[in-house]
């Protein structure tokens, strides 16, 4: 499927999960297509809040994002987010990285909420329910669901089974499970049966649309 057609499912006000850790695993071409598509007032869930001027940073710069949910917005090259945040033009919810991953996982796995020790005794637990279990304090955290997930994998088969490459895997597999519609950009699409079933990381049940994007050799 062509990227523009794939992302046309995204509506104003949607929550969009965006894979990637920095640029590793960032679905840049899908984000570019989303910018072209024009949906706005979006909530973006991603580890970072954009690097440099491309990918997520370009979506932010285009004024399409109302709120960012992420673990680490502030980086040496996050000038687009920094400017919007300081101007009061974007909301931020900071979530510890492991809680971000687990809240996405919970959404995909049908878990209503979970208790985690991460953040206990810190300002990020303020206002949240807590419980002492076996002498240790845990904080109640709720799932994060997406309307759409945009992820980048390495190779897909025509059914949507995915394999990833090295640390570009990062949030892809959990985000794929946590959204109503998952769109994966991949370097290559092969026939069903060509991927070894033993090495498939994301089973096709989680993947709705595939967008082939050639990567320079």
């Amino acid at each position: 499927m062509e990227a523009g057609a794939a992302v046309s499912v995204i509506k104003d006000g949607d929550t969009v999960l965006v894979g990637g850790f920095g640029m590793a695993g960032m679905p840049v071409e899908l984000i570019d297509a989303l910018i072209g598509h024009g949906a706005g007032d979006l909530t973006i869930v991603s580890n970072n809040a954009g690097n440099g001027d491309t990918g997520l940073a370009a979506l932010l710069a285009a004024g399409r994002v109302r709120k960012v949910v992420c673990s680490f917005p502030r980086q040496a090259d996050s000038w687009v987010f920094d400017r919007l945040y300081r101007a009061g033009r974007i909301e931020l919810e900071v979530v510890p990285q492991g809680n971000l991953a687990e809240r996405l996982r919970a959404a995909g796995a049908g878990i209503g909420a979970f208790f985690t020790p991460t953040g206990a005794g810190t300002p990020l637990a303020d206002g949240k329910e807590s419980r002492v279990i076996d002498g240790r304090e845990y904080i109640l955290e709720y799932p994060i669901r997406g309307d759409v997930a945009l992820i980048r994998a390495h190779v897909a088969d025509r059914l949507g089974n995915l394999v990833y490459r090295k640390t570009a895997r990062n949030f892809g597999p959990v985000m794929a499970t946590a959204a109503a519609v998952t769109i994966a950009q991949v370097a290559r699409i092969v026939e069903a049966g060509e991927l070894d079933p033993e090495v498939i990381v994301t089973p096709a049940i989680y993947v709705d649309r595939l967008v082939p994007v050639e990567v320079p050799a």
Partner: protein
Amino acid sequence: MSLSRREMAEIVARDIPDGSYVNLGIGQPTMVADHLRPDSGVTLHTENGMLGMGRPATGGEIDPDLTNAGKQPVTELPGASYFHHADSFAMMRGGHLDICIMGAFQVSATGDLANWSTGAPDAIPAVGGAMDLAIGAKQVFVMMSLFAKDGQPKLVPECTYPLTGRGCVSRVYTDVATFAVGSDGVRIVETFGITVDELISRIGVPLVSSPFP
């Protein structure tokens, strides 16, 4: 003489038991990797999803799909494995990592850690994996200068900066002394270019000077 950053990294590396699974935080802790013996059997975890991380990648080795938690290109060692973020942090939270090493703004006498925010009103909050590491690793080592630029000690009775985790730090490696933090208080393990008396006079934390058993 107080220690250079390289010497601090050397001392931390010396205290990592052979065969440990270790996470090195962004910045100064990364330097510890340079001082691990190749035969130590220490496996490095990077929270973006890898065990068996090798040295930084250079030249033709650089692969944008293979980075560390600081988003720097790295290499993989034989026996490396990749996993997604929920697995990577479950590994941490589940208590499977032996040691994590982080920097800090402040550490308290009871091992509270503050290293993610100075609480300044114009600062953009960013926490990354620090809170997960703080509560997840079996042991948390901190590497920092003992005194801030204004001379204030960073080992304090109670943290004034927002906490990253409570009671989680077990060792504090600084340029002038190494401390062990335990239920019985803070012990001086070793000093570098400073007397115990001077340390005690400059830090508002009760210190036990007996060597750590």
